C-alpha cells in the first residue's frame, strides 16, 4: 500500500511588494481620451495599477517582496533551502533571475535556486513544485517568488492590454509541516497545457527567435521592441473551455462539491471574466474572492496577493479549504486545493 508522507508542504507566510508609481485610470484617460476608460473600468474592475520605474526590474521587486517576508519574522534568509522565482520578465535572458535574487536576499549558497517561466498559471505550478520538493524530503523551506513587470512589454497605445496589467511581486513561504489527519495542506494539483494557443498571448521579440531573424535579415528591424499581443476573445474562449472542467476535477479529487470549499481564488485577470466563470461554475458570490481594483492583473502574483488580502481581512482562516485556479499564457493552467495552515502570518 502506498504510504503517505509524514510531512506536508504548507503555505505559512505571504508578503508582496508593488512599485511605488501608480498609474490611475484618470491619467490613462488624459492621454487616451478615446479609450472610454470608464467603460473599461466598469468591465474589468481595474481602477489603477502599479508600474515599475524604468530602471526597476523583476529582481528588484522580487528582492523587495522577499525582504518583506523576512521582516515579517516568518523565517530568516538562512532558513531558506530552495528559491523558486516565477517570472516572464527576467532581468536578463541569462543568468537566471533566481541566482541574482539569492545573492541579494542573502540566501545561503547551499540553496537551490531556479526560475520558472510561466505566467498566469505560474503560482499554482510553483506551489506544485514546492510541494514535490518538500514532501520528497529534498527541501524543508521553499521561498516561492512570483514577479513580473509586464508594463515594460506594453505598447502605450494598445487599449486591449495597457489598462489591464500591473507590475508586482509576491513571496510565499512553503514549509515542511507535520501532516494532519485531515489530509495534506496542499492537495494534488491538476495541470493542463495546450501550446496551440501560444499565438494568442504572445511576446514575439526579445529572445532567440527574433535575434535569429534579425541576423538572417528576416526581421523588420534588428532591434525590435518586445510588445505583448493579446487576443482577448480567444483567451476568453480558452478559459471557458478549461476552467470549469479543471474545477470539477479538483472537486472530484477532493471528494467534495462546491459546498465543501470555503473560498475560491482564481487568477485575477479581470472582473468581467471572473464573474462569468463564477456564474458558469455556480460558485456563490460570497465565497468567490476578487481583489484587483488597485493593482490590476499582476500575472503570476495575482493569486498570492489575493490570498494575503483574504487572510488579512479574515475571509480566509486556519482550516479553511481554498481552491486556487491559474490559467492563461501558454496556454497553461493549473489548479490546487489548499488547506489553510494555522501558523500563517
Amino acid at each position, binding site marked *: 500500500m502506498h504510504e503517505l508522507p509524514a510531512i506536508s508542504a504548507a503555505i505559512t507566510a505571504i508578503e508582496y511588494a508593488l512599485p511605488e508609481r501608480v498609474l490611475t485610470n484618470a491619467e490613462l484617460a488624459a492621454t487616451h481620451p478615446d479609450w472610454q476608460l470608464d*467603460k*473599461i473600468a466598469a*468591465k474589468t474592475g481595474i481602477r489603477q495599477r502599479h508600474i515599475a520605474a524604468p530602471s526597476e526590474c523583476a529582481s528588484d521587486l522580487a528582492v523587495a517582496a522577499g525582504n518583506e517576508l523576512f521582516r515579517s519574522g516568518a523565517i530568516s534568509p538562512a532558513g531558506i533551502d530552495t528559491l523558486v522565482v516565477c517570472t516572464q520578465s527576467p532581468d536578463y535572458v541569462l543568468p537566471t533571475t533566481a541566482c541574482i535574487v539569492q545573492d541579494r536576499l542573502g540566501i545561503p549558497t547551499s540553496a537551490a535556486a531556479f526560475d520558472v517561466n510561466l505566467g498566469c498559471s505560474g503560482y499554482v505550478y510553483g506551489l506544485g513544485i514546492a510541494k514535490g520538493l518538500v514532501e520528497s524530503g529534498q527541501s524543508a523551506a521553499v521561498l516561492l517568488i512570483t514577479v513580473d513587470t509586464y508594463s515594460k512589454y506594453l505598447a502605450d497605445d494598445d*487599449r*486591449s492590454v495597457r489598462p489591464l496589467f500591473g507590475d508586482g511581486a509576491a513571496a510565499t513561504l512553503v514549509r515542511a509541516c507535520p501532516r494532519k489527519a485531515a489530509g495534506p495542506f496542499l492537495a494534488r494539483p491538476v495541470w493542463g497545457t495546450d501550446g496551440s494557443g501560444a499565438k494568442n498571448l504572445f511576446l514575439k521579440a526579445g529572445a532567440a527567435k527574433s535575434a535569429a531573424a534579425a541576423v538572417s535579415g528576416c526581421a523588420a528591424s534588428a532591434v525590435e521592441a518586445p510588445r505583448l499581443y493579446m*487576443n*482577448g*476573445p*480567444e483567451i*476568453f*474562449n480558452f478559459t*471557458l*473551455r478549461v476552467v470549469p472542467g479543471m474545477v470539477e476535477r479538483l472537486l472530484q479529487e477532493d471528494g467534495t462539491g462546491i459546498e465543501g470549499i470555503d473560498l475560491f481564488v482564481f487568477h485575477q485577470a479581470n472582473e*468581467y*471574466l471572473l464573474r*462569468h466563470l463564477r*456564474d*458558469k461554475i455556480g460558485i456563490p458570490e460570497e465565497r468567490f474572492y476578487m481583489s484587483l481594483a488597485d493593482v490590476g492583473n499582476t500575472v503570476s502574483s495575482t493569486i498570492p496577493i489575493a490570498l494575503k488580502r483574504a487572510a488579512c481581512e479574515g475571509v480566509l482562516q486556519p482550516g479553511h479549504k481554498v481552491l486556487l485556479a491559474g490559467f492563461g499564457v501558454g496556454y497553461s493552467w493549473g489548479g490546487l486545493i489548499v488547506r489553510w495552515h494555522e501558523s500563517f502570518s
Partner: protein
Amino acid sequence: MATTSHVPRMSRPEGLQTIQQAMGLPPGTLTGSEEIESLDEWNSLAVVEFMAMTDKKLGVSLDVERIAACVTIDDLVSLLVAESGAPDA
C-alpha cells in the same frame, strides 16, 4: 439512433438586441446593414461581452475566427441565429 432537434432559441431581433447590448448601445440603434469595421463600439471588450452573453443565454461558445469573418451586423446576427439553432428568418 438519436436525432438532434433544432429548438428555436434566438430570433433575428433578439440577436440584434444582444449585439447592441454587448456594444453598450440603446435598443434600435442598429439596423443590421452597418459594416462592423465602421463601428467604434465593436472593440475587443464588446466581442468578449458578446461571447459571454451567447455563452450565458445559449450555452454556445462562438468561434472567434467566424466572428472575425463577419462583415456586417447582419452577418453577425446570422451567425448568432444559426449557432442558436433557430430558423434564420
